[in-house]
């Protein structure tokens, strides 16, 4: 057990790419947590997807042993968090396990939307926020401006804002000293009944469920009989320990400590992130506050390409949920795609990541349908029901109205882009509210806008219109009635439910033309003509045709080289596997997310 006075628990939070994981590297190095040999860039980003994309997806905690210049031996529990808006749930969960937050800002970019959003999360959680300007080694760095902006948000003097380079390590020693001085030591009651917060978990094929926890009160010993307060489950602590970042088993975790717990439980529904663990014999009276369930923003159907994989997909979703508590789903049946699940995601990146993780980690091949937000339908009797899939929208005669989710969006931008951004937002039915100048060069634009207009391609457009300088954050503000219609897509005269979308009436024709045009590009020529139509109710609003293919034959048999020709055709056959038969039409899997692509023209 570690004396609480020697413990400092903090998260590193920032806007995406401002250098959290790189700074974590320096801290791991400085404290000798990883050897020179094991060191690589963003060493805490262990998932393949994180490394390929160069972003953090999962928060990662690590225990560091730090000896201060004064010779004091301290324990730092650091949690590196993701910066992308879709993963802010990871941030809030991490913050609940800490007393402090290190808020980084890129010296060249200054304060961005998620800098603000994450700063407020930390302040609201009652944490000590330590501001620091990172990347001061960059030629374009303007540490003074960035420090002034940070001081503007948090109060205090710009002179007190730390200056760092996570790349060169400059300022890291000062940072460590500041963390030790400013982050409050945990103050749990060592004698009270055990209370530990499960802030994350994952499924290990050999060991079952592994929980990450933060002990708040009391202490936890290996072999203890534990009760999970929300589920009521009782399990023995098979193994407990620290992540240094290697898992190191220990006999006891005391108050203020962060570590892992393995109970040997393999049934994944028994354990829930946000639950409080206490002792079965001497339970605590009240649980810790836990977490608010995050609200999914977008929904998309996930269907196995091979219909036999439905159960495998269900199992995979359940296992993945242990490691991604924001994932929700319900079974969905599509005439075109068979049995699958309607899944809720926190945003498009989240959706992409979940799909890729399911495919890679659980060896599945999936079709994802175009994402949609959740609508509320006012039925003829005045009742309201939520629909998460366009195919569930009742016909106009069977509904009194439809309302859609709105968000309050906040864009931070250099002032020169205010005009183009306002044009973009109003073109998407946004209602512009406050425009406030943080500094003469940097503007905060607030507006209200339908979520459905912002979650898909808006961010890409915003980036391209502002050369990457603007950043965006948003939060739900409830539902508003809108003039919405369902646009159906028909292939070969048959409506394909997976292609239906709900759009604003004014945008329906353009949407229909865009979709039919895209599908014409994406659907390969077949043995017969394939008409593609877009329709509202029975009215056709756009049509295209994929003409039947006229020639598909090898000219020569290669002088009797039958083997070679066979191989060639076999390869073409493999290519066809990523097709889904919809009625009599072969549709490539990508077609189902065609609606995702950025609209160049808008």
């Amino acid at each position, binding site marked *: 057990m570690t004396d609480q006075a020697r413990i400092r628990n903090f998260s590193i939070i920032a806007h995406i790419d401002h250098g959290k994981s790189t700074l974590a590297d320096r801290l791991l190095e400085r404290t000798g947590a990883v050897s020179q040999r094991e060191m690589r860039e963003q060493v805490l980003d262990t998932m393949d997807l994180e490394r390929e994309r160069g972003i953090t997806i999962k928060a990662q905690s690590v225990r560091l042993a730090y000896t201060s210049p004064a010779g004091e031996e301290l324990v730092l529990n650091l949690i590196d968090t993701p910066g992308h808006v879709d993963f802010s749930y990871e941030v809030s969960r991490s913050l609940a396990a800490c007393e402090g937050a290190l808020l980084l800002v890129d010296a060249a970019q200054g304060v961005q939307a998620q800098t603000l959003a994450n700063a407020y999360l930390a302040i609201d959680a009652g944490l000590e926020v330590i501001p620091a300007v990172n990347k001061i080694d960059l030629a374009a760095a303007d540490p003074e401006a960035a420090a002034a902006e940070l001081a503007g948000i948090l109060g205090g003097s710009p002179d007190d804002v730390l200056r760092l380079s996570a790349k060169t390590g400059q300022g890291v020693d000062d940072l460590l000293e500041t963390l030790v001085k400013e982050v409050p030591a945990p103050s749990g009651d060592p004698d009270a009944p055990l209370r530990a917060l499960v802030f994350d978990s994952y499924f290990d094929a050999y060991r079952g469920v592994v929980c990450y926890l933060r002990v708040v009160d009391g202490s936890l010993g290996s072999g203890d009989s534990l009760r999970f307060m929300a589920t009521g489950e009782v399990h023995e602590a098979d193994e407990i320990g620290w992540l240094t970042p290697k898992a190191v088993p220990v006999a006891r975790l005391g108050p203020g400590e962060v570590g892992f717990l393995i109970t040997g439980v393999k049934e994944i529904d028994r354990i829930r992130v946000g639950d409080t663990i206490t002792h079965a014999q001497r339970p605590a009276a009240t649980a810790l506050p836990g977490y608010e369930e995050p609200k999914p923003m977008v929904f998309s159907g996930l269907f196995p390409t091979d219909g036999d994989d439905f159960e495998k997909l269900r199992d995979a979703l359940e296992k993945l949920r242990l490691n991604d508590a924001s994932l929700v789903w319900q079974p969905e049946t599509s005439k075109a795609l068979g049995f699958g699940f309607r899944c809720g995601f926190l945003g498009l990146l989240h959706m992409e990541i979940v799909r890729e993780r399911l495919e890679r980690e659980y060896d599945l091949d999936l079709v994802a349908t175009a994402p949609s937000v959740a609508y509320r339908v006012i039925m003829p009797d005045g009742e309201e029901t939520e629909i998460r899939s366009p195919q569930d929208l009742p016909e106009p005669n069977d509904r009194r109205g439809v309302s859609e989710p709105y968000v309050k969006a906040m864009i931070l931008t250099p002032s020169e882009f205010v005009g183009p951004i306002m044009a973009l937002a109003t073109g998407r039915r946004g209602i512009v509210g406050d425009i406030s100048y943080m500094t003469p060069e940097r503007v905060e634009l607030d507006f209200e806008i339908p979520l459905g207009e912002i979650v898909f391609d808006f961010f890409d457009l915003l980036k391209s219109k502002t050369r990457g300088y603007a950043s965006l954050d948003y939060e739900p503000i409830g539902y508003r009635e809108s003039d919405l219609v369902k646009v159906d897509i028909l292939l070969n005269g048959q409506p394909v439910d997976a292609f239906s979308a709900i759009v604003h009436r004014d945008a329906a024709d353009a949407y229909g033309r865009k979709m039919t045009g895209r599908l014409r590009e994406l659907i390969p020529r077949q043995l017969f003509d394939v008409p593609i139509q877009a329709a509202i109710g029975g009215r056709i609003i756009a049509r295209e045709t994929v003409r039947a293919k006229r*020639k*598909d034959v090898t*000219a020569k*048999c290669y*002088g*009797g080289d039958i083997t070679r020709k066979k191989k060639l055709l076999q390869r073409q*056959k493999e290519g066809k596997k990523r097709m889904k038969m919809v009625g009599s039409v072969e549709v490539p899997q990508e077609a189902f997310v065609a609606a995702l692509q950025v609209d160049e023209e808008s």
Partner: protein
Amino acid sequence: MTPETADAFANHAAAYVHIPFCSAVCPYCDFAVVAGRDDLTERYVAALCAEIMGSEPWRPVQALYVGGGTPSRLDPGLLAMVLDAVERRHGIAGDAEVSLEANPEDFGPNFARTLRAIGFNRVSFGAQSFSAPVLSRLGRRHDAAQIEHAVLHARRSGFTSVSLDLIFGTPGESLDSWQHTVERTVALEPDHVSCYALTVERGTPLGRAVGNGAPAPDPDVQARAYQLADRRLGAAGYGRYETSNWARPGHECRYNLTVWAQGEYLAFGNGAHGHRGGVRFRNLRRIDAYIEAVERGETPRVGEETASGWASEIERLFVGLRRTVGVVPGSGGVALLAAPEGERLSQAGVIEVREGRLRVAKPLLGDEAMRAVLGLADPEVRENAASADTVSLDA
């Protein structure tokens, strides 16, 4: 040609001999060829003869095909050595078809007479086109007049079958231009015509050009060109007996018929492919590697694939369906017609069963049928697997 006659070629004995030398390599060509290595011709022919003499003696071949490359680049004396080796080792039947591929510009009167004298009776000219711009785009080194002269010399020296190879669908070629090529071909009255859609092969100069944005052949244009040729040749008395081949009755290429009937053929030379005793085999593709292997007394074979049972049945369809007469359905045909893919193909009129034969009725979509054939599962195996499941469940 009756279906029975076509199927009977399954029992023919055939042989292929490869001559890789060319004066230049055409930009679209993906065959095992070399240009500028004429210094190797004698060593190559010696190796070829050694390979032939080292092969297990068979029976007299009824069709011998000397292809390339450009066999007409070789000195007739060397070609005679090759025929002699085949004759001595296996025999060449008295009524055998003895074919040679020739480039029009090589085919003078003396050359033609000599070839005839040493035993060739069929010649296939790489004419490709009668249009000067198309010939130049194809990197060919002859003109239309040379094609006409070559055919004349072949006739005069007594070749009993004369064939022309044509290429259609070269980017930039109009249908009118192609029609002109077909008309000039018909006017020459060859016995046999092959029309090939220009195919972009990976790794060729054409393939690289297309990869870098040069125009690729348009499949719709090629489809129309094909139909145009089929109509015109049909009207002139040529029957289409295979996807890309037309002949006057009795002039169908017997070597090819043997290949498509799943018959056996020996193969000699670099990159050559043969089929014998249920085994498909191929030789080293690089000429120097081939020569060195043979000179060291080693076999030049590099790959073998054995097909028996279901695999052989699939293969029978795979090769046989290129023929206009199609195939006896057999267990493979039955499986195809029962499979969802087969049903789709029947519905679209790509395949049909008529008078007891399974045929590809739309040859332009033949590869659709071929892919479906390759995907067919052995009905017996599936049953066995199912019964194995039952056993393990019971146990």
